[in-house]
């Protein structure tokens, strides 16, 4: 079974480079799905998010979710890059890439991973408003818990 590629970092990522890394040496991949999560400006009210994470636990938890996704959807490749630190509107926060022979597995693998990252990856987001003032910590959303239900009771 293929191994996931997992990184947490402050720098941005390049999707093209990351797709190439995943594809190299496998000409039997028929479908690649990427998910990029970005910082929104909340209609102009937000100047930045500060992402705090728990080093060590973050990588381990993501790796474990990624292994489950590979196994469950028979993926031929899976990469996850999660940034931390200060991130401005329009900038990337997270990248998930799922590769498979067939399209539905690639879609499901990336979707599954994102749903679990939302509630299982130890990251927290603090908002800075448009004046640059520190604001609230972003609350966990009930709909993120609900989103997990579509994957059954696993994990």
């Amino acid at each position, binding site marked *: 079974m293929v191994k996931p590629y997992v990184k947490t970092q402050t720098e941005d990522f390049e999707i093209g480079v990351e797709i190439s890394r995943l594809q190299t040496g496998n000409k039997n991949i028929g479908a690649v799905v990427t998910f990029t*999560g970005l910082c929104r400006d909340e209609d102009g009210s937000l100047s930045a998010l500060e992402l705090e994470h*728990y080093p060590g*636990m*973050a990588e381990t938890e993501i790796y474990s979710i990624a292994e489950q996704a590979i196994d469950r959807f028979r993926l031929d490749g899976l990469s996850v890059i999660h940034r931390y630190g200060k991130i401005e509107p329009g900038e990337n*926060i997270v990248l998930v890439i799922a590769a498979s022979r067939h399209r539905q597995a690639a879609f499901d693998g990336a979707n599954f991973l994102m749903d679990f990252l*939302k509630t299982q990856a*130890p*990251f927290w*987001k603090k908002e800075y408003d448009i004046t640059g003032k520190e604001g609230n910590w972003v609350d*966990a959303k009930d709909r993120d818990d609900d989103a997990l239900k579509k994957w059954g009771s696993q994990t």
Partner: protein
Amino acid sequence: MKLVYFAWLRERLGIQEENVDLPSDVTTVANLFDWLKERDELFADVFEHEAIIQVAINKKHEQNRAASITDASEIALFPPMTGG
């Protein structure tokens, strides 16, 4: 044992991490919450709604409040995670 705090717990306590000697009768996650709340007024306040506070033992998420902490070298306490 090392205790680590994240996000608003870290901010409100003013502590990122600390080393503590737990009494020998503090053996579960539930015991730990009781002990934390009795430390002082600030801790009592921060851990008042303990049900929403999440726990990781040795960097592994632990949702069972009856879980043993006797083999733990690092326990993290944090709000619900908001990754992705």
